[in-house]
């Protein structure tokens, strides 16, 4: 079972290489992409099953023992996220069949998507800080190209902001790694966790924690470092922004969760306090940003930021229940955000543009799509019995148990505004009558009425998942609880990696 772990990295790499070699044959690239994503999905299911049966899985790359070699580790959180990522990549690569123009395919869209997947899966599985940095770079480099290629004006502007801020984040991350290695002489996460338990390093731990909080905070788009996200996520082709929204920011969240439960958990009470404040600000400021926006994808982008804040709430409260809430919300958020971004494609096809003021009346022509969107939107808004409700419920419960009433108020406030933003979106795009043409040539074209099956099916599956997680939440909550139990007791993780050592 342990040997399946490197497969999660090898499969996307092989997929990317084969589709690179067949880059003049788009048909073959689609087939290879589909086969590769399915293989990744089945491997990640096998890994999750293995983790549930046998406990934490780990493999030492090259058979070099733990503090020296690179470790790949799968606990419940990592394997769960890998599984969700595999689902998202499969669905997005199907949606790309019709939503990516032939020029971008010829330029190498498919290989890049799978390299990005490799980076994401690698980040989830690695147990080594420097290796994590490498996977971040793999992810970033492919995402730079995915954002920028095509070379439209708006796209380049968005990419510049994205690249600049992410390079800054990488620099901070690397600086943190340097200090870490200089002080402790190790970069293995389990070993670091062990060494940072010592009381002598309290101040250094806080400094380092701040560096990493900044670095991952930029990647995850946490207040006040989120400006790059709404500036860039609405510019690339829809499937690209769907996979970015679904997975990239979540990798930042995953890194924060991993670092602040495993490595900086001892004296870092202050840090968890800071994370709580940041979470509250991210939630409220993010959703306030969504209210004045008129572009479909920009509205969803600001919603995305707001829910990054919600995800951090659990990490800030730092009780097993709260962490379980974060894990549950993470699953929900990846699925819904991918779904909402994919909806942009449908709206653009049907309405001809993405400006919600000029759209309208889609409910009349496509009631089924309107229903699907309504379900996804209500789930984001946290209406029972959809997936978003349970995630928020657990977080609120954990908040009340810890007497963090102001935080609970922030969750409710942000949730209310999210609901407002989502219902505005629905009523503007689907419900109200389509306004008479105002003389804007860009929106004059009444869009096509044809919706390709390869776009509708992934959205349908995502909405189905949202509904299933809502109506039948107990297995998902059970998984989240298991993940949280492992996170709040890092001793198990440390012992598994450093077998024999104290």
């Amino acid at each position, binding site marked *: 079972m342990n*040997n399946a772990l*490197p497969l999660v990295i090898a499969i996307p*790499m*092989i997929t990317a290489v*084969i589709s*690179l*070699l067949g880059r003049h044959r788009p048909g073959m690239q689609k087939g290879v992409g589909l086969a590769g994503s399915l293989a990744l999905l089945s491997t990640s299911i096998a890994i999750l099953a293995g983790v549930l049966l046998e406990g934490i899985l780990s*493999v030492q790359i*090259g*058979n070099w023992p733990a503090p020296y070699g690179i470790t790949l580790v799968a606990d419940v959180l990592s394997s769960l996220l890998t599984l969700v990522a595999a689902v998202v990549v499969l669905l997005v690569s199907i949606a790309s069949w019709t939503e990516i123009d032939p020029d971008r395919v010829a330029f190498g869209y498919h290989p890049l998507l799978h390299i990005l997947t490799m980076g994401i899966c690698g980040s989830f599985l690695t147990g080594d800080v420097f290796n994590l940095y490498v996977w971040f770079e793999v992810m970033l480099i492919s995402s730079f190209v995915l954002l920028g290629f095509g070379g439209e004006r708006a796209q380049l502007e968005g990419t510049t902001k994205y690249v600049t801020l992410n390079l800054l984040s990488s620099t901070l991350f690397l600086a943190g790694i340097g200090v870490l290695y200089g002080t402790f002489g190790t970069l293995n996460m389990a070993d670091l966790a062990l060494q940072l338990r010592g009381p002598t390093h309290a101040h250094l731990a806080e400094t380092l924690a701040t560096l990493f909080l900044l670095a991952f905070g930029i990647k995850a788009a946490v207040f006040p470092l989120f400006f790059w996200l709404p500036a860039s996520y609405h510019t690339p082709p829809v499937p690209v922004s769907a996979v970015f929204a679904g997975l990239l920011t979540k990798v930042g969240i995953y890194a924060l969760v991993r670092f602040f439960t495993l490595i900086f958990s001892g004296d870092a009470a202050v840090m968890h306090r800071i994370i709580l404040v940041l979470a509250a600000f991210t939630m409220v400021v993010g959703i306030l940003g969504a209210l004045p926006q008129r572009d479909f994808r920009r509205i969803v982008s600001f919603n995305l930021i707001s829910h990054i804040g919600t995800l951090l709430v659990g990490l800030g409260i730092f009780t097993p229940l709260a962490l379980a809430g974060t894990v549950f919300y993470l699953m929900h958020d990846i699925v819904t955000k991918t779904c909402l971004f994919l909806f942009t494609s449908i709206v653009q096809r049907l309405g001809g543009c993405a400006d919600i003021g000029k759209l309208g009346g889609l409910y009349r022509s496509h009631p089924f799509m309107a229903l699907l969107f309504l379900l996804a939107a209500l789930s984001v808004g946290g209406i029972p019995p959809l997936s978003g409700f349970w995630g928020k419920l657990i977080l609120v419960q954990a908040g009340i148990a810890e007497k963090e009433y102001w935080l609970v108020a922030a969750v409710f406030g942000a949730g209310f505004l999210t609901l407002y933003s989502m219902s505005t979106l629905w009523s503007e795009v689907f419900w109200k009558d389509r306004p008479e043409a105002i003389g804007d040539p860009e929106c004059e074209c009444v869009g096509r009425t044809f919706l390709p099956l390869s776009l509708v099916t992934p959205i349908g599956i995502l909405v189905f998942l949202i509904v299933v997680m809502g109506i039948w939440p107990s297995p998902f909550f059970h998984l989240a609880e298991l993940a949280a139990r492992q996170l709040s007791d890092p001793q198990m993780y440390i012992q598994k990696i450093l077998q024999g050592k104290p």
Partner: protein
Amino acid sequence: MIGRAFGLSCEGCHMFSIVLATATRFLLPLLLLLSVYLLVRGHNEPGGGFVGGLVAASAFSLYMIAFDVEKTRRLLRAEPRALVGAGLLVALGSAGVSPVLGKPFMTGVWLERTLPVVGKVGTPFLFDVGVYLVVVGVCLMILLTVAEE
């Protein structure tokens, strides 16, 4: 155009340096040989796939400056992208040998016998060959694209 920037040859500017062209004809095989030498000695001594690949790529770029892009592509035969792909597969293949033998991923597996010129042969050497191919491919992909613009 890189050629024009160096004041050397290319169809557009009709400046063809016979000295450079003649020297390149002799230097190219030597440089390629050097790159392979660096690749082979790389396991225990300075060298390896990365440096070897850089030297090989620089040999081809010298050829490109002396002659032109078209001729370089013809000399190279394979497309640079294909080199990158093949290199990645070779590297991955070398890492995949050990799981088949029941050891963790990427564990070095060595042959018992030593080969005459190369010395000890094992999967780390194969990995280096993969790196070599990727480096040659990437460098030439960039250089040839820029020169064609």
